[in-house]
């Protein structure tokens, strides 16, 4: 019996994020091939209720570290609790989302455990007994397949890539409390202030639909055209580097090699020419629509559907139709 697969469950407003379910489904599929255990690892405060339903998505066991000092994520507290637990239980594989938390936590945990980490994985499968990780390099211009040397292997999983299966509504996960042994050295990092832009729109990397704009928008005031369409579709707003460098929109909206890599179901590129760095960041989208007045624009070479036209005419029209559809339900 190997040590099983762990999924670190990240929560928002006391509920697991979508990526948590995606990883549980992935872990379940792999575990079933080898009769392994899937454990969800839940750190936070007052998350007992949240633990119960994880069984339905594939967890056999929930390790629950419930402590006020874990209410907000900090690098050193979470690393300490997870490293202690991993040393005690020796899992074979530990997964976390490729999220703000996963990017900060997993390299630290990997270093503390003296182990390997695959970042931003878009593939994970068994080849015989060996776990094979697939991840983009050069922002998706190429892919790497690799395997871990030694255990536990660590990986962060790209959101929006793996499907969710609610496997067994009767599965009751065993909830096992985890000791929390935190010292003052683990509390060196202090969060002074959190500033959140209130937005009803989904996070760019998790969105199913992204409406993205570039130089063709001509100015910051025209991003409201994208916002209107994004809201009609329940999507997020993105931008090309050209629009960000022009100061029209903040960098956190940038898609591409020096911004975010996204894989939505639908990516609508408006007034984006399609520089190689941008294509690298969104080329794995399932369906790409390009709206651009230049028929020679690079973006048309990979778009599934294109409209050659003036986005200032096309976007309001498209937004109108999408609003009608939304109103019809």
């Amino acid at each position, binding site marked *: 019996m190997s040590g099983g697969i762990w999924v670190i469950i990240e929560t928002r407003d006391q509920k697991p994020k979508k990526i948590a379910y995606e990883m549980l489904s992935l872990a379940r599929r792999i575990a079933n091939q080898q009769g392994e255990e899937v454990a969800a690892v839940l750190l936070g405060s007052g998350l007992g209720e949240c633990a119960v339903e994880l069984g339905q998505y594939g967890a056999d066991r929930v390790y629950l570290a419930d402590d006020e000092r874990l209410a907000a994520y900090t690098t050193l507290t979470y690393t300490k609790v997870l490293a202690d637990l991993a040393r005690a239980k020796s899992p074979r594989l530990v997964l976390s989302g490729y999220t703000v938390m996963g*990017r900060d936590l997993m390299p630290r945990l990997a270093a503390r455990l003296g182990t390997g980490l695959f970042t931003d994985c878009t593939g994970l499968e068994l080849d015989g007994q060996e776990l094979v990780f697939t991840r983009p390099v050069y922002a998706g211009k190429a892919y790497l397949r690799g395997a871990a040397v030694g255990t536990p292997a660590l990986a962060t999983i790209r959101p929006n890539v793996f499907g969710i299966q609610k496997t067994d509504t009767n599965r009751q996960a065993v909830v096992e409390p985890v000791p929390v042994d935190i010292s003052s050295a683990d509390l060196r990092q202090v*969060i002074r202030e959190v500033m959140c832009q209130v937005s009803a729109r989904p996070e760019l990397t998790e969105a199913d639909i992204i409406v993205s704009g570039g130089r063709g928008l001509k100015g910051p005031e025209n991003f409201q055209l994208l916002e209107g369409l994004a809201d009609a579709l329940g999507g997020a707003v993105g931008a090309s580097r050209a629009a960000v460098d022009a100061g029209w929109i903040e960098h956190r909206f940038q898609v591409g090699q020096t911004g975010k890599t996204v894989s939505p179901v639908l990516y609508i590129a408006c007034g984006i020419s399609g520089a190689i760095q941008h294509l690298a960041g969104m080329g794995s989208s399932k369906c790409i629509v390009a709206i651009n007045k230049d028929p020679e624009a690079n973006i048309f070479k990979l778009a599934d559907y294109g409209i050659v036209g003036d986005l200032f005419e096309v976007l309001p029209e498209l937004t109108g139709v999408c609003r009608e559809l939304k109103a019809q339900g």
Partner: protein
Amino acid sequence: MNIAVLLKQTFDTEAKISLAADGGIQSEGVNLIINPYDEFALEEALRLKEKAGSGEVVVVSAGGPRVGEALRTALATGADRAIHIEDPALDGADEFSVAAVLAAALKKGSFDLILAGWRAVDDGSGQVAIRVAELLDVPQVNVVTAVAVDDGRVTATMDIEGGCQVVEVPLPAVLTAQKGLNEPRYPSMRGIMQAKKKPLEHLALSDLDLAAGDTAPKTKLICHSLPAGRQAGRVIEGEAAEAVRELVRVLREEAKAI
């Protein structure tokens, strides 16, 4: 204030990626640059040193002979000295190995702050700087867009989902730079001339306090591949209103995307 900047030489982001005959990534003829995120780190280090009025900025990099060019550029931009760790034993090194090597080099000095880009634009792995923080047992703040140092503590603003947060840690600490932190300066003519006289130290693994297992990789490469090329799809003709109706139809019926 003594600041180390971890620097990586990467392919130009303009580079097209192809596979070499041995299945690896073709590097011949590719223009090499300083990882853009590391440029933000270097710029921030220079500004913090200027503000403190004393100390030095040391750029540290591990890699092959061409890394020397990147380090000279960093010196020309304003860094005081450079350390180049080069050793045939580093062929096939992974993040675990490189972090061990960089941490061992940093332990030879004494630094108040260690800065690096939050990820490199080549492997995009985003691990090495954080691993170094752990090996040095110092706190980290990842993906920062603003930094202030005061009285032995650093306050940094980091990106989080849907906003940002301000985090405080005691020095020494590791910070990783995000785009937006600053606007990096270019090397001046005078800087380029001065860089030739600035110290660039070469180290091999035997110069560092490392045990045999410390640098043995924890991951192995199976293969590289290129993504399946996307085909150009269909251009929908017609006036805006007509084209939009058709686009919505195909998105619902063919692509099932909305």
